[in-house]
């Protein structure tokens, strides 16, 4: 498997909206949370930043949004530098942070209106109303935030991020601790926003989520951006699954009649492992089981296993 750093090697995309060049970050504690990162986000895409906890996802987007001071390197949003020209960049960006932090004593309507003002726009009740309706918050507009459930509070945070009509929306772990209904509503909203031209960058540690939603995926681990790929390409590379057969009678070697299958025999000969691609048209399982029966190999038990994200990271890092 060759894992090229595609952003570095591929031709520059026609019209990137965010360009991150050599950005690193060492916190005051001396901990290096990001090694130099190069990344460009295409205008209008849904980009998923995928990585385990502590990988540096929040750090990276916090730097782009202005919440954490950048280390070395430079970032532009729509051609504007995020430090020198922060007013231009921040007014284009909406952020839904990972933590649920709200002004408990404010009403939903007031907190969304506050956000719009803070981002430098004159009041526009019709827009706030639309956002609240889209997020099923309209009935709750006069409720104080502290009276809302956790899921509702997350909706409020999304409403705040959309109050100033941003071109770029960051969603940091949007589905962590979120119920099914909200997840569905959220993805519908994300798709609608994308259709209206908003660029969306989300972070997640669920590979399925990246797979379902994103046009492209960046994988980050221990502060390093390991790869950036079209989602389909990445899933093909990562979507390997293992089928393990516990044999009734140990085998000395894999019989020649089975050589066409990608099989491995355990050292003691009691287990056969078949590796296949979940994304492929044919997984080859039916053929394999047929050939096993023909060869007279009986098995006691059968199990399948998908690589966990952590294992995938280990693979990716090792293969570099």
């Amino acid at each position, binding site marked *: 498997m060759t894992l090229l750093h595609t952003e570095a090697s591929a031709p520059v995309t026609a019209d990137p909206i965010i360009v991150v060049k050599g950005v690193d970050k060492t*916190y*005051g504690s001396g901990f290096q949370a990001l090694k130099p990162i190069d990344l460009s986000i295409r205008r209008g895409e849904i980009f998923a930043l995928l990585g385990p906890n502590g990988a540096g996802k929040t750090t990276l987007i916090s730097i782009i*949004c*202005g*919440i*954490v*001071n950048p280390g070395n390197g430079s970032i532009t949003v729509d051609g504007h530098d995020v430090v020198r020209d*922060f*007013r*231009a*960049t*921040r*007014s284009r*960006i909406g*952020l839904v*942070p990972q*933590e649920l*932090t*709200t*002004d*408990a*004593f*404010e009403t939903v309507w*007031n907190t969304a*209106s*506050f*956000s*719009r*003002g*803070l*981002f*430098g*726009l*004159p009041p526009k009740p019709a827009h706030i109303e639309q956002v609240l309706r889209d997020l099923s918050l309209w009935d709750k507009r006069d409720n104080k935030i502290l009276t809302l459930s956790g899921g509702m509070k997350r909706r409020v945070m999304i409403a*705040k991020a959309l109050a100033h009509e941003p071109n770029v929306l960051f969603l940091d772990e949007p589905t962590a601790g979120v119920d099914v209904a909200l997840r569905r509503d959220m993805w519908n909203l994300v798709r609608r926003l994308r259709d209206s031209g908003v660029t969306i960058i989300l972070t997640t540690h669920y590979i399925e989520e990246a797979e379902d939603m994103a046009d492209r995926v960046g994988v980050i681990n221990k502060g390093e951006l390991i790869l950036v790929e079209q989602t389909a390409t990445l899933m093909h590379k990562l979507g390997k699954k293992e089928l393990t057969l516990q044999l009734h009678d140990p085998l000395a070697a894999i019989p020649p009649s089975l050589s066409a299958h990608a099989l491995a025999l355990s050292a003691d000969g009691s287990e056969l492992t078949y590796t296949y691609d979940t994304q492929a048209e044919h997984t080859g399982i039916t053929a394999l089981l047929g050939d096993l029966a023909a060869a007279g190999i009986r098995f006691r038990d059968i199990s399948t296993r998908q690589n966990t994200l952590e294992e995938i990271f280990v693979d990716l890092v090792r293969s570099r």
Partner: protein
Amino acid sequence: MNWYAIRAIYNFEMARTRRTLMQSIASPVLSTSLYFVVFGSAIGSRITSVEGVSYGAFIIPGLIMLSLLMQSVSNASFGIYFPKFTGTIYEIHSAPVSFVEIIAGYVGAAATKSVIVGVIILATARLFVDYHIAHPLLMAAFLLLTAITFSLFGFIIGIWADNFEKLQVIPMLVITPLTFLGVSFYSIHMLPPLWQKITLLNPVVYLVSGFRWSFYDLADVGVGASLAAITGFLVACLVTIGWIFRTGYKLKS
């Protein structure tokens, strides 16, 4: 300049004041009335006048200063500490605002509230004693300048504090003693010569003296010295805040 942001922060803070109206306004009025009863009536019956001004009237400027300092510091420090504490400060950091707008919003609201409290105390005092204001415009200027300066100072404390204890410690251990020792309730001429010299090191003396001068033409130190002291402190606070925002000190990691 992001005017809408200033307005948003200012209105947000004023809404917070309205929600805690009793605490914000009623409690200074009550404590001031108590000061009048205790200091004005009890001591006033023994000290009938200070340099020609009745004792009750003499202590009004000091009482207002006392509340103004405490209110400004506590309003502004709490105003910025709270979003840091709850985490909602993320939104301020991610917004297209510079420290100028943040200060204008938070400090503007804290100073407004202190001035309102000051004016209420002035009105409450009318119930107890008669007084006149010799230089109303300068009185208003002192009121405003002090409210703004100490709100800036409170803002710095709110950023510096990373727990509720630190938030309380400066007002309790510094502001309150300096105010009580800062000629709020007596004239510097009542002190022995050595204490007079030591008292002159207390910055609050300059504030109270200047403010009292604007009422009764009575000053412990020259009114120019008072104005210079408050302006100097204002500049020092602004420089500190500029540095905080440039470096991200205790604000951003």
